């Protein structure tokens, strides 16, 4: 493995890795593709006549509105907290990431409890004859999804802005750009791959979301998927719609990649961190106000409401069992994050060593699990693990022995399923960090006699460290919130905080679910806080770039 990294060997260890990962990720997809054997024309006719036109339209609208909001909030706040100094900025830099820890459907429920026709705020305002518009609409759902998901864009953009060479901006300013112009014409274009990766996560989450759209009565494609399965009893049709959804997602990403191809993104040698400008007092306090308001509506007020419910309704439920739920959540989140990041690193390296289009497509297939509604992916995973078990038991019988099923109902199956679902979440940060490690660094190290492994350990690993932590923290938080896969693959007795939320919400006891919801949010803020400190601290990212 000591050959020159620039030459592309025909077939290497990395190709095997990619092939393995694609096979792993594609395994549940096989179940989905296999659904095309049986087309239920009655259901399809019904869907295309009454549902799909609306669902396609509302999916597109929701996607567009959420992306615009998340882009505005994410990129805007990232630039604000990176390029300027104002009261509280050090706090906001990390605190603005914390809404990531709040499950979107919990946030949605809190908003409905306030603003729906019988919501507490609505009733209060009605006393003074102030009518509120209907919030159970596409706009309400978009608002909630944007608040819950903007941190993905914020994180990606901030990492990119922090690591953007100040020189590029200085050059821009020397050429007569104001700081605002520099933002639009230098910083954002340079951060484009990262911002796109962040927006892609948001888009995938929106496409796969069922909780929020069900609460707000929005007719998206994921609602169509559930309807085909649960209401029309046609799982194959549900999978066929899911497959189309995944196909569209892959196409969109490949298109973006193709469009980006002409631009090259490498840092130019030694870089200085961007020095934040101090804002004058009025703009400064406005900036503080904006950040405070975002934080309040996305996290602080909802958490306060959950706290009130948990205190008034759920106090008795807080027993020693919660330690088990907590421990299981953390253990699954931790081990799931570890496995997923490991696979993401292998995948990113493979793509770095071989940048041919086939490889890009393979990578996209391996990371598409995120765009599928979790329940559909869960069914695919269970189909695969059960098939393995059937083969295993049959093999045992061949030997005249009775072997217990190997995978079904084990944590191994869960971890595989998590990795398939969240690979793209880990892949994004790892890939963009690896993209900033120039091939010239490798060449220099090799010319100094360093082996491939040495390059990995002494150059790449230190440079990738923040990205690896970022990836792990993101996956960790996602697993804490994940529901359908956890429900369907958990071993007996392995209850988590998320399954606790399910037990209560599925029975219509939303307010009582405040206690586990609060616990999930708290458990998620720890890695989010850590993530923010580790990844987006201006000095940490830069001191590590000095080796070259």
């Amino acid at each position: 493995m000591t050959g020159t990294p620039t030459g592309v060997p025909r077939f290497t260890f990395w190709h095997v890795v990619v092939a393995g990962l694609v096979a792993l990720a594609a395994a549940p997809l096989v179940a989905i593709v296999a659904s095309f054997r049986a087309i239920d024309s009655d259901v399809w006719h019904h869907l295309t006549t009454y549902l799909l036109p609306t669902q396609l339209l509302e999916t597109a609208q929701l996607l567009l509105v959420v992306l615009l909001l998340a882009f505005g909030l994410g990129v805007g706040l990232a630039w604000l907290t990176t390029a300027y100094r104002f009261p509280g900025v050090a706090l906001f830099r990390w605190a603005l990431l914390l809404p990531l820890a709040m499950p979107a459907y919990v946030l949605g429920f809190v908003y409905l409890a306030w603003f729906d026709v019988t919501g507490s705020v609505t009733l209060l305002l009605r006393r003074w004859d102030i009518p509120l518009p209907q919030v159970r609409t596409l706009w309400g759902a978009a608002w909630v999804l944007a608040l819950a998901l903007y941190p993905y864009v914020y994180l990606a953009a901030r990492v990119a802005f922090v690591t953007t060479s100040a020189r590029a901006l200085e050059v821009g300013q020397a050429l007569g750009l104001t700081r605002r112009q520099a933002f639009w014409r230098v910083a954002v274009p340079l951060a484009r791959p990262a911002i796109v990766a962040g927006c892609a996560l948001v888009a995938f989450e929106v496409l796969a979301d069922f909780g929020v759209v069900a609460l707000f009565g929005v007719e998206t494609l994921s609602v169509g998927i559930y309807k085909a399965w649960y209401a029309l009893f046609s799982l194959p049709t549900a999978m066929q719609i899911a497959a189309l959804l995944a196909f569209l997602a892959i196409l969109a990403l490949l298109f973006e990649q193709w469009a980006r191809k002409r631009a090259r993104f490498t840092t130019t040698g030694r870089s200085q961190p961007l020095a934040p400008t101090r804002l004058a007092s009025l703009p400064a306090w406005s900036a503080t106000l904006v950040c405070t308001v975002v934080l309040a509506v996305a996290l602080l007020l909802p958490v306060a409401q959950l706290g009130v419910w948990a205190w008034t309704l759920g106090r008795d439920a807080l027993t020693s069992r919660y330690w088990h739920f907590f421990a299981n959540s953390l253990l699954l989140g931790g081990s799931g994050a570890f496995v997923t990041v490991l696979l993401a690193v292998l995948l990113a390296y493979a793509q770095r060593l071989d940048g041919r289009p086939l490889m890009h497509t393979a990578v996209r297939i391996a990371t598409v699990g995120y765009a599928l509604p979790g329940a559909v992916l869960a069914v695919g995973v269970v189909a695969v693990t059960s098939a393995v078990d059937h083969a295993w038991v049959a093999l045992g019988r061949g030997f005249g022995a009775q072997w217990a099923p190997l995978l079904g109902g084990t944590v191994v199956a869960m971890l595989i399923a998590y990795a398939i679902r969240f690979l793209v979440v880990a892949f994004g940060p790892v890939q963009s960090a690896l993209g900033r490690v120039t091939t010239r660094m490798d060449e220099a190290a090799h010319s100094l006699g360093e082996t491939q492994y040495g390059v990995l350990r002494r150059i790449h690993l230190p440079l990738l460290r923040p990205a690896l932590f970022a990836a792990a923290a993101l996956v960790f938080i996602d697993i804490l919130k994940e529901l359908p896969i956890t429900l369907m693959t958990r071993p007996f007795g392995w209850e988590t905080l998320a399954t606790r939320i399910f037990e209560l919400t599925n029975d219509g006891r939303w307010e009582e679910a405040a206690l586990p919801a609060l616990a999930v949010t708290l458990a998620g803020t720890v890695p989010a806080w850590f993530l923010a400190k580790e990844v987006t601290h201006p000095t940490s990212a830069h001191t590590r770039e000095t080796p070259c």
Partner: protein
Amino acid sequence: MQRRTFLTALTAALIAAPVSATVAAETLTVYTSRNEQLIQPVFDAFTKATGITVRFTTDKDGALIERLKAEGENTPADVLITVDAGNLWLAKRSGVLQPLTSDVVLQKIPAHLRDADNHWFGVSLRARTVMRHVERVRADEIARYEDLADPKWKGRLCLRTSKNVYNQSLVATMIADLGEAKTEAIVKGWVANLATLPFPNDTAVLEAIAQGICDVGITNTYYLGRLVAKDPQFPVVPVWPNQQDRGVHVNVSGVGVTKHAKHPELAKRFIEWLVTSDAQKIFAEQNHEYPVVEGTPVSPVVARWGTFQASQTPLSKAGELQRAAVQLMDRAGWR
């Protein structure tokens, strides 16, 4: 250091899994879509009465049925518990259940509340009925579900979303009793009378009636039971419609033995125990449902609502006609 912690955690997780897979012989394994807080007391009482331990996992109905299908003969589950007759019908049609022969069960559960081939049995009953504001609507203003389609109720009706399985079963049994054309006309009338967008859950419908957003609605009885238990002044009461003809629409939570049960004898003992008065009392008291076995007392809240004539239409119709019902509701524009 960090990595070592992760590795330790991972190893622990891997070791824990096979350990939890080995269970004592006298353990009944259950897949249930009835949630933990409702079913745990039932299992606890069963264990206390028989010494048989129960392990279970919860999930949504559709997911549990798909899981049983995929696991096939390797499934650890002996018993499936689900809510809604349509789901029970689907479980039978998916081939994940087996018939149970038990004279005790046949004798205690009325025929229309169980499968004709003994694949599943309703064990608790809930009425999906018309709810009215106690002051704004008089009891004699509504005699039938059909009446809610009358223009008199324009802007005064609240419904839950048509994506809810209980609404689907209600409409399916209406199709069974009235035919598709008549049902569609009624459902269209309901939609035309809506005061606001359909709600995501029954509790929201009841609160909307209480707050004056609308005057009437259709929900399951136990949701009202829970609200009244919390606040005895809650200003909503049920109406018992169609007492002169087909009766109030009822639905069940039910149980069946899985096709590849490893402990069919334990499963049988469990289901036979579910129709004892001890078990029936738990369903009635704890979730304000109605017992399926005659003579079991209901909760004080439920007792105040009086008795009613329930529909005798076989509940398997809810499954057979569910697809037709869903398509009908979509045509009628019920979101």
